[in-house]
Every structure is written in structure tokens, then in C-alpha cells.
């Protein structure tokens, strides 16, 4: 069952206090971020219904927002998501090569997840790191000035982190 822990509930309560009386819908984006982080990196229908209920919204108000914004995943994703920028300024510095390398190395295409559920590759548009290209987002942080060697190291790092957490 989908339910926020006590600590997540505290965060939820902090978020909804920022808006005027009766304008709690404004908390929807931050609460969806919280829900996505809390429940496996994506928003299932059950999760969205839970959020709708918490904020006293119609479920459709949540679905339409969740599907509008590219950071919300409405399908399951791997444990580690490589979000690699492919927009012009990154392309000038070789993002195509990096994307191809990751595809080869992980044996998946853009938008796909490895069979073991470990990695998802997502191509994304400009993330505001154009001067440090090529780059990707991994979790809450950016990995910049990517090279093939750096990609290898990042994949290793993820694998060993996953092994530690098991």
C-alpha cells in the first residue's frame, strides 16, 4: 500500500503551509516529487490517487499534471536513471558519442531499462549545464564533462552502490 512515512508526512505538512488558505493545490508539484522519491522513482496510478486524496483534488487534476512535466515518470524506471542531455550546445561537445556509448555499454536504447532493472537511459533536453558538456543527471546531481572513461566509472559506481545496499 502507498503511504507516506511519518517523516515524509512532516515534509508534506511543511510544503502545504507555504500557500494561502485554500490554495493547497499549489503544493501539487512538490508533493509529486516527494511521492516519486518515496515510492520507487515513478508515479503509479495508486500513488497519484493517494496524492489526490491527500490534497483533496480530483484524480484527473493529478494525472494531467503528472503527464505534463517530463521529470515525472508514469512508468517504472530502473534503479539508476541516466538522463543525458542531447540539445545543441551539448551536441557541439560530443553528446551523441556519449549517448551511443551508453547504449552500447548497457545494451539498451533511449527510453529503455536494462532487464535487471538496474539502469534506464533517458535522453533529455538542455539541463542548464551547457558549459560543462557533455553531461547527464543522475539522481539529484549532475555529472559533467563526460568522457567514455567517466561513463564506465559511473556505471561501476552504481553497480557497487547497488551491491552495498542489498
Amino acid at each position, binding site marked *: 500500500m502507498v503511504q507516506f512515512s511519518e517523516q515524509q508526512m512532516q515534509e508534506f505538512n511543511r510544503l502545504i503551509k*507555504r500557500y*494561502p488558505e485554500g*490554495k493547497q*493545490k*499549489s*503544493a*501539487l*508539484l*512538490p508533493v*509529486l*516529487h516527494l511521492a516519486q522519491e518515496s515510492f520507487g522513482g515513478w508515479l503509479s496510478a495508486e500513488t497519484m490517487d493517494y496524492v489526490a486524496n491527500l*490534497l483533496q483534488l480530483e484524480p484527473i*487534476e493529478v494525472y*494531467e*499534471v503528472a503527464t*505534463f*512535466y*517530463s*521529470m*515525472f515518470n508514469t512508468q517504472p524506471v530502473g534503479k539508476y536513471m541516466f538522463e543525458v542531455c*542531447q*540539445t*545543441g*550546445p551539448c*551536441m*557541439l*561537445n560530443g553528446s551523441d558519442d556519449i549517448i551511443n556509448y551508453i547504449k552500447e555499454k548497457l545494451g539498451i536504447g533511449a527510453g529503455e531499462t536494462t532487464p535487471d532493472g538496474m539502469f534506464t537511459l533517458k535522453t*533529455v*533536453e*538542455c*539541463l*542548464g*549545464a*551547457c*558549459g*560543462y*558538456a557533455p553531461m547527464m*543527471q543522475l539522481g*539529484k*546531481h549532475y555529472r559533467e564533462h563526460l568522457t567514455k572513461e567517466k561513463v564506465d566509472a559511473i556505471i561501476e559506481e552504481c553497480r557497487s552502490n547497488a551491491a552495498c545496499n542489498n
Partner: protein
Amino acid sequence: MGVKLLLAKAHIEGIRNYDVYRREGGYQAVEKALKTMTPEAIVEEVKKSGLRGRGGAGFPTGMKWSFIAKPEGVPRHLVCNADESEPGTFKDRYLMEFLPHLLIEGLIISSFALGSNDTYIYIRGEYAWIVGILENAIEEAKQNGWLGNNILGTGFNCNIYVQRGAGAYICGEETALLESLEGKRGNPRIKPPFPAIKGVWERPTVVNNVETLAAVVPIINMGGEEYAKIGVGRSTGTKLISACGNINKPGVYEIDMTISVEEFIYSEEYCGGIKNGKHLKACIPGGSSVPILPANLLLKTAKGETRYMNYESLSDGGFATGSMMGSGGFIVFDEDQCIVRHTYTLARFYRHESCGQCSPCREGTGWMEKILLRLEKGEGKMSDIDLLWDIQGKIEGNTICPLGDAAAWPVAAAIRHFRDEFEWHVLHPQEAQVRNFGLAYYADPIQVPAGA
């Protein structure tokens, strides 16, 4: 060395923390503004400074502030636009990441001037780690009496909240931003009513860019008139430029708007020249939405005069031979880059980011992407180039928000200045897959077009 007003202290160790920032003279502007000035006097000072919005449109900030409606008993809000999603632009990130207190200081003064007791920073969702940096700075400011209730005993209350977006370029457009802040899809609103009359929750609202609000701090410290003496003409003060592409030293630079484009690209103080000893082919000087210029028109205007890094000079010649300052996202191309391919990536970007409300934008961006991909892959026809020209012309000016124009301009400018390269892709489809068109004559001095 040019004048530095925003980044002068960026390299001081620990400047991100309150104690260091305060020791280095931080929060003096808040003290001065709240203790010795009225809100009206602050607006006057900003007007005198000539400060223009740093988010892209360049609208005079003081004038924008004076439009805010003040109906009795209705709260007003200041919203800081930290959505920063225009390809080539990463300057606000730098400010927030390294000088969070400068932004907070600017926000407190601006909130006081506008009468906003609850101020929001709307930050793009991907800048997740910066949310913590900002919230930390807000907490420090609160603990030291610069935020909260009855600030400095003036009776002014102010809180600042950080709201995370979730990946949508369109939410940088101010009315889409307000929709998003209300927990909705980021569909731009039809104007009027303008946000200054009916903004977030139907209350009078001012939306300003991060850099604009940070610039209020030096304006208060030195006075609007002094600020206006920096720069040239109507390009007053300093501007942050985020430089990227094929240059030796990509990064964020503060310029005082008197330097030439040539100096900016080639001097060691800034971009340090083109990477790997190559030649300059082209540049998009103000973020992906502004027209691309070939090297010859970038360094000199069509009249043969030196082009400078300021609002007027960059737009000299209009769209026929000029470009725009925009957001300051400076994208440099070397001789090996393919203009068709780059234009395709931008078309794909705008198709991806169109909110889909207006058909010219929704359908037009889709078609432009498709045709550009065809041309790039060597599968295009000569008539495709005219078709592209036709489509971009049908989008421009026919949409609810300026994203439509922003999608049309890069395509129009690429065809205007690099038509040969598009034609080469059609005429030499196989060759176009293995090599790029190169420099051609773009770096040569050009003929002044008739009527320019």
C-alpha cells in the same frame, strides 16, 4: 578587467555561508533600503538605474514594478523566475549555487518595494541540489533577522519559499510559471490581464529573473545613477553571460557591456578563443531562441562597425543581419559544426517543449523537426527548405505566448544565413553524412545587403 558587481566576491571561500557573506558587506543593502528608504523610493532608484530584465526580454524593471496594482486588502506577490531552461543559459544556476545570499538579499529589498509578504522562487526541477542551498540561505537569513516578522523593526514581514518545477521549459514563460505555481499544467495564459493586475491566485504579481533581482543589491548600494553610468546607452550595469560550445574557457562571465564580441570570444579574460585552434564559424549570442549569426556578421555589423556585447549592438541590423542579447546564453560554433544538425536539435527541443495549446506552435514545431531531420539525414528536397521557411513564418506572431516565435526564429535565421549549407545537404546527401559543410565564406567580410 571590467567592472564586476554581481560576481566580484564569487570566489571568496565560504561566501555561500551567511557569516562570510555578511562579513564581506552582505545585507548592507537591505539595511539601507528598509531603514532609510520608502518602497516608492526604491522603485525610483531602480528606474534611475536603467536596469532591464535579465530573463530575456529586456523590459525595464523599474517600470514593470510601477505597474503593479494595489487594490485595498489584496495581497501582492513577487515571484523569482529561476526556471532557466533556455538552451545555452546557465548563469542563474551559477548565481544561486555560489551566491545564494545575494539573491536572497535582492529578494528582500524587492519584496519590500513591491509589498510582497510571501515571495516565491520558482526553480527548474532539475536544479534539485540548489533547492537545499537556497533553503539553507533562507534559514540563515531568518535566524539573523533579515526574514520573518517585523524585519529590522520596520513592521515589514517577509517569507521566501522555494518551489520546484518538474521539467518544462514553457514554465519559464511568466504566465505558465504562475499556472505551474498554482499546481497546474504549464499552459500560458492569454494576456491581458497581465500578472501585475492578476497573477498568482488572481493577485497582483511581479515575475522577475534571478539575475535581475540580484542586480537590485548593487543598485541600492551604489545608487541608481551610479549604476547607470556603467555600460553604455540603454545597456546599463553589468550582464552575466554563460558561454559554451567550442571555446577554450566555457563558463559564466560578468561583462560591463562595453566590450566587443571579438574581445569576449578571443581574450584570455573571457572565452579564451576557439578550441583546438579552429576557426569561428557562427554564434548564437543570447540563448537558443535568438537568431544565429555567421562569424562575419557576429564580429562586425552589416555596416562594418565593431559589434559590442550589449542590447543595442547585438540587435543592430534587426533580424536581417543582427541578433539579440536575450538571456545571455552565448553558444559558439567552430568550423566543423553542422548548422543543419544543430538547428534540428533546437527544433526538436521546441517541439518537445510546446505546451500544445495553439495549433501553429503545436503542429508547426512538429513539422519543422520532421523536415529538418529529413534534411539532416540527406533525405530532403530543395522544396523542403522553402517549406521550412514558410512554416516558421506561419508560426511567428500567431500564438498565445512567445514560445512560438522562439521556435521560429532559430530556423529562420539558420536558413537566412546558411542556405548554402541546407542546399548542400540536399545536393550531396551522401557526403553530408560523413563530413560537414565547413566554413565556406562565412568568415569573410560580407556585402551589405540592399536596404540594410
